[in-house]
């Protein structure tokens, strides 16, 4: 097992092994219970187009958790970006310039939110839970204000292709997710910001003593998190062909779940993208599988809570 993983240059840590075992377990059960449907092309395509939205949100959460923080405002940020973009788009849906303007406006919204979060945490000194909680409340309020609480819909085909189209057979959303996941991995492994993130996550004071500007780094981290939310917003808009304040609220907890399941240490300093990728696959296949088996979605919700607890207990036992 280790040799196989080594050959693939995957980390051999315990976490990954557990996830792989769970995955194999799920596949086996599903093969027995509902093999044809589960492994059908339609289902695989459906799974691979649902997962990326959660995936982007998980990445947005994970990058903050690596620094020992957390970002409770990711859903609010995603909705804010989508509402801003939707409002502009619907002014003149078929105009290419307007589309561009909308995209830029969405990105700017994300960056502003990220800067506010980062500034509160790094310069004012508020704890991440509180800062992002406060921002979440504020942004949610603004979201309702902008949209009047109603749905904005009617997007041009050029945007919808992001949700429905495919790139060499790979659904666009999945493609986007893989692209940004690799990008984040590259950032973490191959840039000084990445090394800073890991160092800060374990010990912010010592990192600061080494002459690294940890405050600026926090700013960057939360801006990156928000930009990932912007991409999530694009995927969401394309899939639902609409934007609304309050979409996807249940995803917050699942994003945290995916991060921790994927090996991100909530205290900071440890965790790898590949772990998150695996965790997402596990969660998505579990959800699809349970769905196919006719299990109520609420039971699934309970199961996720239970699984996380079980997972943590297993990890601690072996240690």
């Amino acid at each position, binding site marked *: 097992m280790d040799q196989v993983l080594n050959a693939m240059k995957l980390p051999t840590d315990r976490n990954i092994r557990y996830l792989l075992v769970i995955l194999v377990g799920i596949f086996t059960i599903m093969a027995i219970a509902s093999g044809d449907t589960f492994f059908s092309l339609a289902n695989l395509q459906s799974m691979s187009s649902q997962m990326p939205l959660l995936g982007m949100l998980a990445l947005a959460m994970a990058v903050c958790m690596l620094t020992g923080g957390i970002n409770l405002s990711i859903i609010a940020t995603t909705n804010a970006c989508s509402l801003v973009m939707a409002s502009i788009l619907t002014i003149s849906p078929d105009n290419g310039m307007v589309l561009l303007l909308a995209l830029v406006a969405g990105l700017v919204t994300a960056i502003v939110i990220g800067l506010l979060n980062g500034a509160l945490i790094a310069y004012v000194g508020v704890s991440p839970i509180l800062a992002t909680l406060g921002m979440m409340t504020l942004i949610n309020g603004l979201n309702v204000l902008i949209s009047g609480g109603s749905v904005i819909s009617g997007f041009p085909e050029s945007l919808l292709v992001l949700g429905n189209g495919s790139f060499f057979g790979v659904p666009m959303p999945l493609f986007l997710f893989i692209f940004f996941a690799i990008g984040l991995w*590259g950032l973490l492994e*191959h*840039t*000084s910001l*990445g*090394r*800073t993130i*890991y*160092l800060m996550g*374990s*010990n912010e*004071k*010592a*990192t*600061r*003593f*080494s*002459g*690294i*500007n940890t405050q600026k780094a926090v700013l960057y981290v939360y801006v990156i998190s928000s930009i990932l939310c912007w991409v999530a917003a694009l995927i969401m808009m394309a899939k639902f062909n609409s934007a609304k304040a309050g979409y996807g609220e249940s995803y917050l907890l699942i994003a945290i779940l995916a991060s921790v399941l994927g090996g991100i240490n909530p205290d900071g*300093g*440890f965790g790898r993208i590949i772990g998150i990728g695996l965790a997402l696959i596990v969660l998505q296949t579990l959800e699809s599988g349970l769905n196919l088996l006719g299990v109520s979605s609420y039971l699934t919700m309970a199961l996720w809570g239970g699984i996380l607890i079980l997972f943590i207990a297993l990890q601690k036992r072996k240690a």
Partner: protein
Amino acid sequence: MSNEAFITLQRVSKHFGSVKALDGINLTFNKGEVHCLAGKNGCGKSTLFKVISGVHEPEKGAEIILGGKSFSRLNPQQSIEHGIQVIYQDLSLFPNLTVAENIAVQDHMAWTKGLVKQARLNTIAKAAMDKVGVVLPLTKRVEQLSIAECQLVAICRAMASDAKLVIMDEPTASLTRTEVNSLINVVADLKSKGVTVVFVSHKLDEVMEISDRITVIRDGRTIGTYPAEEMNSDELAFLMTGQRFEFSPLGEYQQQGEVKLEITNLTKKGQFNDINLQVRVGEIVAITGLLGSGRTELCLALFGMTQPDSGEIKVNGKPVKFRSNREAIAHGIGYVSEDRMSTGLVMEQTIQDNTTAAVLPRLKKSNGFLDHTKAKKLVKKLISSLSIKVADPMLPVTSLSGGNAQRISIAKWIAAEPDVLILDSPTVGVDVANKESIYQIAKDHAAKGMAIIMVSDEIPEVFYNSHRVVVMKDGRFSHDFHPASSSEQEIMEAVNA
């Protein structure tokens, strides 16, 4: 002092995984004696106290004889009931509670006494403060106090209960001479009341001044127990380290290079006052003095972590004002922290990342990405030139021994190629053999032209490894010695004066 035993430990061992923190400790503390435990950092004394206070359970086969009964282990409640009070080096205070509540905190464990009454807490606190002979602000929260005041709160807390055995772990570390004197009086007073005081310190002169008997601990083992009057500091040092070292002082400063760092009238209220210093190319200047004298505070100001109120700092002849440590580093100043575990190194991260932490911007390729090959080469070079024992640079720093970890902390700054390197307590928690090699690193780099400031409270360390020794006292430079023409004794007297 009687010869009646208060507590006896036999065959006490404690393992943490494969590390043997304690290996067959045998000792006795008698009633009403002042007993010193002598041992360097890492010898196992903290673990020993935790066994005595009931926090740790010793390995099977141990026996603790206390109050006429035999125990295989103690729990905190039993230990406290028998009158054992430990004042840990970290003081174990509650920063969010008031002084009165901290001193009287044991009262919170007395379930049968009913409700908590502020008046009673105050009474207990006042009585304890009277016993110790200090006055502290009862309503201030402990987090608002200075380290010295915190130490006094910890001592008062021990006195608040009916203590029969008080263990103090490095109690004088942050006290001024006057405060040390009062502490010695407190200890004498306790002794006259039949209380046993166990004292840990590596300041040998204090140790011998006030103890009746001394037990030496090395590598978790008891080497022996000796009457204090038959002991001298050389013998004690030999027993503590197991080695005799022949040292010779560095000699006078020869290079006569330009002045790298010049400090004029540097002042920061409450920390240091009117500091004047010049350090030249290749010169090693040591700053020594009691903890609390302002040494680390001065270092932090030189390193840009804090800003002085007045005075001037010149680097390479140019006046500078550092708004942050990043600016200090940019001007060629490096600082090896006194506490490597919390500010010097990120212990859980890799050796590789730690070593390159101060020079990440220099390791970038033209496209902005990190040049891993260059980084790995740099780390390899440093590991070999500083003779660090590293199995794999991708392992976390926790996999290294104290001495090797400290060298990584130094390597990080050597990588930055500073003009002025400040070493703050560079050999704390490092065994003697490694100490020597760290001194050699400093001397080698000085010979190559680095200006070095070494801060330490170990007099032999500064005496044998610097060109000049400056004594700091209460925020001021009080004396200036050249080791080549003075003695350790002179410096020690100046520090303790």
